[in-house]
């Protein structure tokens, strides 16, 4: 956002991996803009949630009692820890400790799997109770409860897809670290991937109270 144009930094043209001048600030800016769009994507859903919660306060309260607060809490802890290991992996590569970075990065990905596993258990138990979109059990209930669980599956589902996307990105980063493409001098890709992982984390931080705590 500097008033004066910085040093002329030109992205090299096609197929050249080694850029003569990397514009690290430019790369970060692009990433932040992308994160902004992701936040706005979820913002639409949060908006819908608030509108329907306002119209169906009692039903949302009642339905909220049926989600697994314990599993949700454990998952929150898993994701928060994974954000920590993510940051540690960047700190490691900054200090040139490749294998420490690999360890922390793998732990982060592993935490992603744990999160998805717990999510699977949680959804399965809801579905076993007959609560899923369009199910006879759910349709017999009030409109507010149908909407609550509709939003529950939509929002946690979309978040789950983002977790998977994040894990795929981190897996690529892992390969790049192993091949020394990401190293002590050049780790902007890992930083950007980390930013994405934190975004996935922070969206969960908002989903958690909305579906598990306020009831």
């Amino acid at each position, binding site marked *: 956002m500097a*008033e004066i*144009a910085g040093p002329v*930094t030109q992205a090299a043209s096609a197929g050249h991996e080694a850029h003569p001048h990397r514009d690290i600030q*430019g790369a970060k800016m692009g990433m932040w803009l992308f994160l902004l769009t992701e936040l706005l994507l979820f913002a*639409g859903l949060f908006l*819908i949630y608030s509108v329907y919660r306002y119209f169906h306060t009692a039903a949302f309260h009642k339905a909220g009692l049926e989600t697994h607060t314990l599993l949700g809490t454990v998952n929150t802890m898993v994701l928060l820890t994974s954000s920590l290991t993510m940051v540690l992996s960047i700190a490691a590569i900054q200090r040139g400790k490749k294998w420490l970075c690999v360890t922390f990065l793998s732990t982060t990905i592993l935490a992603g799997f744990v999160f998805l596993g717990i999510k699977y258990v949680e959804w399965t138990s809801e579905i076993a109770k007959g609560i899923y979109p369009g199910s006879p059990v759910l349709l017999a209930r009030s409109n507010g409860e149908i909407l609550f669980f509709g*939003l529950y599956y939509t929002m946690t589902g979309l978040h789950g897809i983002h977790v998977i996307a994040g894990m795929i990105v981190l897996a690529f980063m892992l390969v790049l670290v192993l091949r020394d493409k990401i190293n002590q001098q050049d780790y902007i890709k890992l930083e950007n991937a980390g930013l994405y992982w934190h975004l996935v984390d922070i969206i969960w931080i908002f989903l958690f109270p909305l579906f598990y705590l306020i009831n």
Partner: protein
Amino acid sequence: MSDVAFAAGGAPHGHSSNGGAHSYLENTGKRKGILSWILSTDHKRIGILYLISIFSFFAVGVVLGVLMRLEMLVPGPTGKIFNAQEYNALFTLHGVIMVFLFVVPGIPATLGNFFLPIQIGAKDVAFPRLNLLSWYLYITGAAIILVSLFMHGLPDTGWTFYVPYSIRTGTDVTTAVFGVFVLGFSSILTGMNFLTTIHRMRAPGMSWFKMPLFVWALYATAWIQVIATPVLAITLLLIIIERVFSVGIFDPAKGGDPVLYQHMFWVYSHPAVYIMILPPMGVVSEIVSTFSHRTVFGYKAVAISSLAIAFIGYLVWGHHMFVAGETETAQFAFSLLTFLVAIPSGIKVFNWVATMYKGSIDLQPPFLFLMAFIMLFAIGGLTGLFLGSVATDVHLTGTYFVVGHFHYIIFGGAVFIFFGALHYWFPKMFGRMYNKKAANISLGFLFVGFNMLYFPMLLLGYEGMPRRYFSYLPQYETLQHVSMVGSWVLVIGLTIMFWNLIRGIRKGEKAPANPWGGTTLEWTIASPPPTENFEEIPVITHEPYYHPDAEMPEEHAVPVAK
């Protein structure tokens, strides 16, 4: 590509000569033929790729539009050429193609891609590979929309995909909506790329207020693309989720609220109107300065007004829903905010006119397109006032009046300037000149055809003709026929124009580096531009529209002591 010599010192000097560098149209890389284009990360080649694909879809959209007019050959209760279902599909496809595949990507993806880096003195955009990816996403989205045509019947919801019909219809809305979702990604990535490019890659000395106004317009547009498109994305995603899983979020039977969908849709789609119109406004500033041979009057005000339009554009979406059960308070607020858009728009128009004042005006084809734009856009703007005020909107909404107004703004406004911009930058892009006489003739046909086509719509709507009907009552026959014939005249104009431009690419006479006397950076390099744009990155020392030859008339000079 980067092996073209631009090393300081040894590089041949001289800005306007080719200086030994290869033009971007020549192949210098290892790839040959079409691969050297569809795998190129050169922003100029990507701009051309977009140009070809966007105008291909434009042609399809035009054909669909002409067919819709043809349906109005005879009045009466039964369809003459198409039945009701086919007509529903026609207006849906016409809308989806023209909005999402043509006007929204429109100028930013084509001319923006081509000229943004050059105008700020850069060699490419910030993320060249992401830029190419945007084009592939565009093509993928377009292909998915095309596939939806051959699956379970043509989508028939209108381009707005309003619920609850869009979640109940048996036609293949899911695929079409997914196509638009993918196009949204393309739009977002282009926006991100432009924002980063403008922030990070301006040539030394180019401060914010030394940027050309086209760049300012693209900057404001890019913000809208980044901020508004995700909301559309989630809204469309919800339609798909609704159709596949019947979650109930927009289904009134399950407590969902269809009006909420309309809010979500227009929160994007109204700012999207400014995605369509802001870049053309930027082009107008360029053309008006070049052909008046004067600096843009009120440069800063024009630059800031782009941002103001983008900002206010976010707050007016409710005017699409005056009859959708809004409270009076909401109607009042949205109506007032809608009228506020007139302020920054007026700032632009008055400053353009002030730029022409006492300028030495050169009536070249791009400038004539601009004159047509001002006239048509004025009609579009004035009819907008009828729709912006609640009392008249209640009568006019859902009629041909809305269709007429929309086309005056988007076709008469945005697209006429798109054409004007093509005529303006054509010699730079291809190094050749089209036939100017043929260009003027085509504009004549376009202007007459356009008004014949859309002005009757305003009258028809005022008399009560509803939009999206495949037939009409006998009293509307004359105006419907005028409109129909107008569509044919318009097509003649389009045919002459494209024939002239395409012929110009191959056979036009060679164009010099600066045929119009433009002052922005693209006119300082060779036509067509070399692959790396600049041999040396220019250093900017003065404002973008500095016309050193234009003597300032004495009465305008700063008064000095006698």
